[in-house]
């Protein structure tokens, strides 16, 4: 399941919902991305995530479907927030459930790499002295390439 929302999320609540829906779960991997308080050595005031409603959901659904087809998963969840977020706040949650650990771990890793490189969001960082749009990092794109074989 995918959710694109401005509200915060609770890992434990989401995990419980997934556990109640599925039988014979042996492994749960999760990843939480959090707003840090530094932006290129400057104190961050906030990070605003802009997105393209409609396309975001479409792309997230597509990548979740790909994870479900590449690994033996019982279930998965992607929650990505948008709007103005402050240091310490949650940005993204990925949870994958499987019988055996490898499927949950690898698919969770795959999904978060994808979100970091192709996640359909644009980040605006506000610091005390200025504001700027975050450029997509090449290292992130290289990181994502390893999944393409």
């Amino acid at each position, binding site marked *: 399941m995918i959710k694109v929302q401005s509200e915060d999320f609770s890992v434990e609540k989401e995990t419980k919902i997934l556990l109640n829906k599925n039988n014979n779960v042996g492994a749960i991997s999760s990843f939480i991305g959090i707003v840090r308080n530094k932006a290129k050595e400057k104190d961050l005031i906030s990070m605003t*995530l802009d997105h*393209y409603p409609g396309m975001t959901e479409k792309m997230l659904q597509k990548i979740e479907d790909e994870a479900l087809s590449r690994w033996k998963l019982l279930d998965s969840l992607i929650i990505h927030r948008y709007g103005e977020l402050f240091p310490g706040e949650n*940005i993204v949650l990925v949870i994958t459930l499987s019988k055996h650990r490898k499927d949950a771990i690898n698919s969770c890793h795959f999904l*978060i790499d994808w979100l970091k490189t192709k996640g*359909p969001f644009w980040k605006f960082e506000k610091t005390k002295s200025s504001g700027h749009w975050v450029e*997509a990092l090449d290292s992130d794109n290289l990181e994502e390439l390893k999944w393409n074989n």
Partner: protein
Amino acid sequence: MKILYFSWIKDGIGKSQEDITLNENIKNISDLIDFLITINDDYKKIFSDLSSIKFSKNMNIVDINEKIKNEDEIAFFPPMTGG
């Protein structure tokens, strides 16, 4: 045609979306850009370097030669980064 702009493209052009009616010379995204840069210098500046601009048609990422019609929704945005 509905056109959407995101991130610094939106800031540079000064709007997040607009509607334009295609004339018949505009057959693909490249043609659309050639048209847009005639509107004013803001567009010209933004579209002077296409290396960090991506395009979508009806919410699918496409390349610059993608055919377009008046009913399509086109968006311009820089490379994305989530997480």
